[in-house]
């Protein structure tokens, strides 16, 4: 009898507990959000902080040269339409991925640059992760350094954000993990000696010491998806852009750090 009472009590407690703590993952509270920068060792932070030691600045310099260089059959440079990037590109990266009206779906900054090449320069698209595309993206994004991340909140964009959020929350792959299981539930812990972090994509494209190169957010996402042993997506796939869009809405208000440095 006593045993039965204990079991009933335990069940009641369980029900009460579930009512207080919602099942599954909860997103990180706004004031608890932290950039990946805050998880780094002071030595690595120092590399990012000094523009003459920040390796990403090498790509920014290249991007500045490319901005002024004529390209494609139209023989036009980015600067011919957009003039000085310091003024015209200020704040642009903060609101990407953004909706492209013609395509009817969001595109990220790399895709926007390639669309611009196709539509206005009559040039072939630069391959994803190529030095030139990373350089131009880093140069454009660097103009928004320190500005608050502010992706669009229009009704047209909402379904894409929601799909990105579903991707983030969904368990998948042979390890049956969702992004959220690490980056919402366990961001204060370590995985094989590395900080798990909160998946706040504030500094892309960024220089990863592990890559010995600059890389895009999609490169990082594909790394993570491979780590979950899940089906991966090609660069530029709508699924990855939607995930990017959700990550940016998750980091809304946090300052852009491009070009960031990470271990």
């Amino acid at each position, binding site marked *: 009898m006593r045993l039965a009472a204990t079991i009933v009590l335990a069940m009641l407690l369980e029900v009460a507990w579930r009512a207080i703590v919602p099942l599954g993952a909860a997103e990180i509270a706004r004031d608890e959000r932290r950039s990946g920068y805050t998880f780094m060792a002071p030595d690595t932070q120092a590399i990012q902080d000094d*523009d*003459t*030691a920040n390796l990403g*600045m090498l790509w920014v310099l290249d991007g500045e040269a490319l901005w002024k260089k004529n390209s494609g059959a139209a023989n036009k440079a980015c600067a011919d339409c957009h003039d000085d990037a310091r003024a015209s590109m200020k704040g642009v990266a903060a609101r990407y991925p953004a909706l492209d009206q013609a395509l009817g779906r969001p595109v990220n900054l790399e895709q926007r640059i390639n669309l611009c090449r196709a539509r206005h320069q009559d040039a072939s698209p630069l391959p994803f992760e190529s030095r030139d595309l990373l350089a131009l993206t880093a140069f454009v994004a660097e103009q928004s350094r320190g500005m608050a991340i502010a992706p669009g909140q229009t009704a047209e964009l909402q379904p894409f954000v929601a799909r990105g959020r579903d991707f983030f929350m969904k368990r998948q792959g042979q390890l049956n993990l969702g992004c959220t299981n690490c980056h919402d539930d366990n961001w204060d812990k370590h995985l094989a000696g590395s900080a798990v972090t909160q998946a706040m994509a504030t500094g892309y494209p960024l220089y990863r*010491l592990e890559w*010995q190169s600059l890389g895009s957010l999609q490169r990082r996402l594909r790394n993570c998806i491979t780590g979950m042993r899940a089906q991966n997506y090609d660069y530029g796939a709508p699924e990855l852009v939607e995930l990017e869009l959700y990550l940016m809405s998750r980091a809304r208000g946090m300052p852009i750090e491009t070009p960031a440095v990470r271990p």
Partner: protein
Amino acid sequence: MAAALINVPKKARRGDIIEIKTLMSHIMETGYRHTASGQVVPRDIITSFSCRYNGEEIFRADLFPAIAANPFISFFTIATESGKFDFEWIGDNGFSETASASISVE
């Protein structure tokens, strides 16, 4: 496209110890890696770096395959007179880059 980032103080007092920081864009391919089909990726590294202060060599370094891509080299010198620092990187496959920075010493 090679690009260098140089950090030399614009001004210094005579006798000051100053730090010079240089960053050079380079892949530093070790020569020890293989492609998926088993072919060796040929070595492509910077092999030497030097710095001259008004023509006189004040720092030199030999670089080897174990050094990471985009080598960052920093060193100290004494500000003796106003003038120019000339930097030179030399490497495999005819790689050769130069950069310079000036300083005024009071």
